[in-house]
């Protein structure tokens, strides 16, 4: 397992409720938990992944997502069981949609 931590500057987002969970820690899948964070214009991400050595790809995938969507003011926690970058991007979008009340 590898633990990764990132922080990205991002436009603030308004949550609909407290927290949102999306996905399952199953083979080729992951779960994403989005909660309100401390800084309104930043997003922190903690990843626990079963696949070692993919830190740079995680950083690129999440940075790209953070540049396209307002995710400021959130803490994102991810438990991963070998999801591909496409699945990660899909789940991030679903989780953010749930977090903002289906606005995405």
């Amino acid at each position, binding site marked *: *397992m590898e633990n990764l931590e990132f922080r990205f500057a991002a436009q603030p987002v308004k949550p609909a409720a*407290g*927290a949102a*969970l999306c996905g*399952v*820690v*199953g*083979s080729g*899948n992951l*779960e994403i*938990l989005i*909660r309100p964070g401390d800084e309104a214009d930043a997003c922190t991400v903690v990843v*626990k*992944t*079963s696949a070692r050595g993919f830190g740079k790809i995680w950083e690129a995938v999440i940075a790209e997502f953070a540049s396209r969507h307002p995710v400021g003011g959130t803490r994102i*926690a991810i*438990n*991963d*069981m070998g999801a591909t970058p496409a699945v990660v991007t899909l789940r991030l979008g679903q989780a953010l949609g749930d977090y903002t009340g289906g606005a995405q």
Partner: protein
Amino acid sequence: MNAPVYTNLVLRHSYFEATARSRVAAVLDAGSFREFLPPEVAQPSPHLAILDIPGAFDDGVIIGSAALGGKPVLVIAQEGQFMGGAVGEIHGAKIVGLLRRAALEKPAAVLFMVDSGGVRLHEANAGLIAISEIMRAVLDTRAAGVPVLALVGGSCGAFGGMGIVSRLCSAIIMSEEGRLALSGPEVIETVAGVEEFDSKDRALVWRVTGGKHRYLTGDCAELVEDDAAGFRQGAIDLLAGWNEPVPSSAGLRAEQERLSRRRQRFAGMRDGLEVWAALGVPDPRQVSLIDRDSLVALKKGLPA
């Protein structure tokens, strides 16, 4: 060009394919579910972290309160996609806590959406103890007068300790796709050899553990379609006419006696086909092919 209009198609939500969270949302009254220990306050398994395996925030089980047809119920839903729904220490503690709450609060029922291969072997003794605590808690909850309904229709079925737990519940609702047994097919093949049981023979696996077989042998109370609405209606129907006497040791002894007689009756049989013939099914080969309603009608016509 006009888009085709489909009028005969009914949108079905497969229970087998769904996640635990979507099962909870689809089976219970819309918007009624309140989760206890939701992911944002729960802790993943410390045992899995030591073994360098990512955990899940809810440790693979969701518990909470909800309404079913307007009646208050408590709910347990195992997530089969996370470690095969296997029961670890936190997972088990959440189930036991919910059952104990049910014994105190006395809701109309506990719905236990089972989807599990049994003990989480990574957690060894903690998982085994958790299973035994769940067994005791199920019986205590029933003894307090609260029916515990097991819903078995997930991809992992109900095997190992969770097979026993399911049979300890007040009643089981299954779909054809659901499976219920003690040792799983691959375990039997590993221990006793492929001559004893070929776990790759999927049709055989279902003829021996599947929902239709369990319905014909009376191990499950209701057979429903693989559809969240089917499980929902099955649970509502069962509870509508519910009058289970509180479990007693005399009742358990009578059940033990019945099962011993059944064991002698079906001794030496190696396939569901033989059991169904012994039960009086005129053409056992048809059982796997007919739909749910036809099988329910067929069972009604069998000799008692």
